[in-house]
C-alpha cells in the first residue's frame, strides 16, 4: 500500500516536472537557436516569450483531428501516446538526488535501455499507420537507425556497468562519488565512452545530425507528416522528453549525477544543472550541423562507433580486473 502511494506521488511528480521542464526546454531551444542565428526568437507572448509553450499547447488542443484516408486508426491514435509514455517511463528510475528517485531498480540501466529500444515501435507505428509515403520512409529510417545505434548505446552503457560493477543507476552515482566521475576518470576512455553514449543518444532521439527520420527538407515532416493537433504535439513533445531524460541519464552515468564538482554542495540542483546543460548542448549541436545521409549514418555507426565501443568494453574489463581489484 505504501509502495503504491509512493509510486503514485512520485509518478505524478515526475510527469508534472518533466513535462513542464520539457515545455520550457522547447522555449529554451527556440531562444537559443534564435540567438545563434542572430534573431531574437519568441519575445511577444509573455515576458521574453516565456508563455510561448502555453500558447502552443492551447492552440494544439483545439485543432481538428484528421485521419487520413486508409490510415490504421488504432495504431495512428496509439503511437503518439506510446512515444510519450515510454519516454516518461524511462524517467522512473533516474535518481535525481540521493532520495528523489521514482524506483531505484537494481537493474535500472536495463530498464532504461529496454524502454529506449521500445521507443522505435511507436515511431514505426506512426510511420506505418499514416498511410503516407513520406511517413513510411521516415519510419523505415527510424527503425534502421534505432537498431543500429542501439548497439553502441548498449555497449557504452556496458562500459559504465563494468567500471562500476552495478546496474543500479544510484549505485553508479555512489560509485562515482567514491571514485570520481566516469567521464573524467579513467582519463581518456571514460570521456570517449561518454561522447559515444551521447552520440548514440542523439541518434536515438532523432536529433541532427542524426535526424534522418524527420528530415524536414526531404521527407516533409517524416513520421509526423499526417498528424494534427495534440497527437502531433505528443509526438513532438515525446522526442523532447526523450532527449531530456536521455540527458539526465547521461548525467547520471557519466557525470556523477547529483554529485557536485569536488563534492561541493552536492544535491538535486547539480543534477538539474547537468541535465539542462546537456539538453542545451544537444540543441547547440542540432542548430549548427548539417545532416548525414542515411547510408553514411549507418556506416558511421557500424564502421566506427561499434568497434570503438567494443574496444572500450574490453578496456573497461581489463581496468576493472587489474586496477580496481
Amino acid at each position, binding site marked *: 500500500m505504501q509502495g503504491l502511494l509512493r509510486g503514485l506521488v512520485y509518478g505524478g511528480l515526475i510527469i508534472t516536472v518533466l513535462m513542464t521542464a520539457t515545455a520550457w526546454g522547447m522555449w529554451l531551444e527556440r531562444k537559443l537557436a534564435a540567438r545563434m542565428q542572430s534573431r531574437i526568437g519568441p519575445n511577444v507572448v509573455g515576458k521574453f516569450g516565456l508563455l510561448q509553450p502555453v500558447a502552443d499547447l492551447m*492552440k494544439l488542443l*483545439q485543432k481538428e483531428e484528421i485521419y487520413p484516408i486508409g490510415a490504421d486508426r488504432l495504431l495512428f491514435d496509439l503511437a503518439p501516446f506510446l512515444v510519450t509514455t515510454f519516454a516518461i517511463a524511462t524517467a522512473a528510475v533516474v535518481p535525481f538526488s540521493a532520495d528523489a528517485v521514482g524506483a531505484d531498480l537494481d537493474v535500472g540501466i536495463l530498464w532504461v535501455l529496454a524502454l529506449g529500444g521500445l521507443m522505435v515501435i511507436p515511431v514505426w507505428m506512426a510511420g506505418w499507420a499514416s498511410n503516407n509515403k513520406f511517413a513510411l520512409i521516415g519510419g523505415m529510417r527510424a527503425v534502421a537507425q534505432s537498431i543500429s545505434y542501439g548497439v553502441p548505446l548498449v555497449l557504452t552503457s556496458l562500459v559504465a556497468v563494468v567500471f562500476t560493477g552495478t546496474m543500479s543507476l544510484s549505485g553508479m552515482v555512489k560509485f562515482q562519488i567514491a571514485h570520481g566521475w566516469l567521464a573524467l576518470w579513467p582519463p581518456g576512455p571514460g570521456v570517449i565512452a561518454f561522447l559515444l553514449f551521447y552520440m548514440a543518444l542523439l541518434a536515438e532521439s532523432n536529433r541532427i545530425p542524426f535526424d534522418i527520420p524527420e528530415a524536414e527538407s526531404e521527407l516533409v515532416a517524416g513520421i*509526423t507528416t499526417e498528424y494534427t493537433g495534440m497527437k502531433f504535439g505528443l509526438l513532438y513533445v515525446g522526442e523532447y522528453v526523450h532527449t531530456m531524460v536521455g540527458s539526465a541519464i547521461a548525467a547520471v552515468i557519466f557525470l556523477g549525477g547529483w554529485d557536485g564538482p569536488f563534492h561541493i554542495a552536492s544535491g538535486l540542483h547539480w543534477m538539474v544543472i547537468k541535465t539542462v546543460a546537456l539538453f542545451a548542448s544537444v540543441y547547440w549541436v542540432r542548430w549548427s550541423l548539417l545532416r548525414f545521409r542515411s547510408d553514411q549514418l549507418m556506416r558511421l555507426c557500424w564502421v566506427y562507433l561499434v568497434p570503438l565501443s567494443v574496444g572500450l568494453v574490453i578496456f573497461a574489463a581489463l581496468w576493472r580486473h587489474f586496477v580496481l581489484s
Partner: protein
Amino acid sequence: MAVIDESGQAYDHPLYTTLLHVPGLSVAVASLDQLLTWGAKNALYIFPMATSCCGIEFMATAAARVDIDRIGSIVRATPRQADVMVIAGTITVKMAPKVKRLWDQMPEPKWAIAMGSCAISGDFYRDLYPTVPGIDTILPVDVYVPGCPPDPTALMHGMLRLQEKIAAKQAGTWRAPEVRPETEKMHGPAVRRIDDPERDPAISAEQSRQAGLHSFDAPEGELDWRGAEPVPVQAAVDFNTLLAERFGIEDFPADNAPIVPRDRHLELAQTLKAMDYSLLIYAVATHYPKPEGDTFEVAYGLRNPSMGGKLAQWRVILQSGESIASLASVFAAADWQEREQYDLVGVAFDNHPDLRRIMLPEDWQGHPLRRDYAADTACRPWR
C-alpha cells in the same frame, strides 16, 4: 458538440466535446474559450504556399531582419500542422487544384493570408490564360497583404492584423469590411469570389472535385541522343560559308537568320555539332496566321563554347500542315525545348522521343502562343 467553421461545416473539437459533458462547466468554458483564442492567435504555424517571387520575400520574413518567430509563428512543411496558409506567389490553373487540396488538408481552425498582388488578384498576369485571378476564388482569405512583392515587414503587419482579427472574432466585435477595395475600379474575376453570394455552387463543387483528383500523367517516351552519329566535317569553317557551300544558301539577310530548307535542317545540326557547336541555345517557333493556312517559322541557335561562344542561327519555314525534324537525336537539350514549342505554339516535331505538353496541363485545348489565341481564354472552374 461539434463546432461550426466559417464555411458552415462541422468539425470535431475534442476538448469542447469533453468539457461540455461535465455539468456546470459552462462558465469555465467561456473563460477557457478566451484562453484558447489567446493560444490560437499567438501560435500561428505557417504553411508557406510559396510559388514564386513573393515566396522569397516570405523567406526573408522568416530570416533575421524581421524574424516571424518573435510572435510565435514557425513554418511547418506539412499542411496538417499549420494554422495559416500564406499564399505567396502566382497561382496557375495547373497549380490551383493542388492549392485547394492542401487547403482542404489543413485542420480547422485555419486562416489564409494572400501575400502579394498575384495571390490577391493575379497581378498583371490576371488576364492571361494560365493564371488564377486571385486566390479568393478558390479559398476564403482572411488578410490581404498588397505589394509586388510586399516588404517582409508588410507580411509581419499582416500576421499582426490576423491576430487582431482572430481576437475580434472571438469577442464578437468583428465586422467584415463593406466594400471590397478593388471592386470599384477593377472588373471582378470571371469565377466569382468565394464569399460572393452570387457564386455558383457548382463551381465550388467542381473545384473540390478536381482538387481530389490525382494528376493525370501522360506516358513518356525515351530519349537516346548519344546514339546518333554526327556527320564528320573536315575543317572548321565559318558558319555562313558553310551554309553557302554545303547547303547552297544564298540569301543572308542583315537583320535575320538565314533560311534553311526543311529537309536539310537535321543534317545542318549534325554538321554543326561535329564542328563543336555543342550548346543548343534556343529553339523558337513563331506563328504567322495566313488566310491560306498558318505558317510557322522555327528558329534555332547553337553556340560554340570553344570559339568564344560564337552563335550559329538559322530558320526553317513550315507551310501549313508541315512538320519539322526534331533535333533531340543530336542535342539532349532539344527534348524540352521542342516540347515547349509543341506545347505553346503547336508545331509538330518528327521523331521527337517524348512529345508531350510540358507547361500546360495535359488536357489543355489549343496552343496559347499562336497569334490568334485569345490571351484571356477561360479555364473553368479556376479562371
